């Protein structure tokens, strides 16, 4: 993926701040020419992955998000830095199935510094047809 513009965002690890993670994602997706369908998919995917890190009621700490705009689409990384531990995030088979339908690829695990993290790639329809 050549030519990368990058946006970073760090939010408290609670549900009410995930809105900012979604709005940033959809704002960048819009710039990249994603369609309504794709934007809605991205919104759902971001939610699923962020909640995988923070749980339904949130945690103490923050989630750092990094959005990379490429010529193909959008790559988003999320890292959870929590006060109460850094266990590996778990993900159900159902969530896997859901994410497979929503994005081109995703990963959930721990980053190199041991923090719970995720990554997703959503390519534009145009780039997938190339």
């Amino acid at each position, binding site marked *: 993926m050549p030519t990368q513009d990058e946006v970073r965002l760090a939010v408290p690890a609670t549900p009410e701040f995930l809105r900012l993670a979604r709005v940033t994602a959809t704002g960048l997706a819009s710039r990249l020419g994603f*369609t*309504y369908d794709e934007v809605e998919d991205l919104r759902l995917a971001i939610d699923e992955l962020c909640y995988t890190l923070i749980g339904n009621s949130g945690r103490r700490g923050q989630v750092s998000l990094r959005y990379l705009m490429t010529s193909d689409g959008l790559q988003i990384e999320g890292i959870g830095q929590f006060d109460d531990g850094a266990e590996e995030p778990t993900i159900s088979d159902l969530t896997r199935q859901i994410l497979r339908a929503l994005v081109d690829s995703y990963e959930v695990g721990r980053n190199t510094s041991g923090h719970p993290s995720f990554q997703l790639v959503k390519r534009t329809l145009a780039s997938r047809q190339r």
Partner: protein
Amino acid sequence: MTFTPDQRDELRQMFVDFAESRDSGLRTRLIEAHLGLAEYFARRFSNRGEPLDDLIQVASVGLLKAVDRFEPNRGVEFSTYATHTIVGELKRHFRDKGWAVRAPRRMQELYLRLGKILGTLSQELGRSPTIPELATEAAVSEEEVLEALEAGQAYRFASLDAPSGQEEGETMAAQLGTEDKGLADAERRASLSPLLARLPEREQTILHLRFFEGLTQSDIAARLGISQMHVSRLLARSLAELRSAAEE
């Protein structure tokens, strides 16, 4: 709600006994002793357009859950624990109703207008429109479109752009009738998650079409005869429900 130190000790002992015996008489007494707590929180949510009686019901469900799940040896006061559960139940109620926070009226109107534009544009273009295309058609900025779409996810408006429940039900019934491999799919879904079965049938179908059949949201809208935004909303809500059910 305040208890005397003696009452407090008595209640603590009752919780310990109940944790052992799961005696239904004790359970009832514990619930009754704390109904005031449920009512207190119901009142705090009563200025949001829902009848107080309904809210007390909802809060009481939270209280029941709290009594059933409370572990007295964890060192947390019951009132602290129950507050969390009751408020959680109330919030969920509002979230499901879509009234947790009201979107600005302007955004509600734009959202509803975008719903119509989305339908028309998709037909004209033969594909899902981009955000700039929606913005141009609605004569607003891209940011406003995104803001309205985000608002639409979080809030459900009273007048949904969907057909009435019955019409929709009939469409769904007709749809389900033509589904020939329904059973195998149902088994596959059930093996993935028993949680799915807890969703209303319509939501199950939409989830199935989107995540198992790979149809787009627009495809699903066309197939079921409901608006695309309605599909988006139902998907978002279903996923939220699955998440909260998974954590229970």
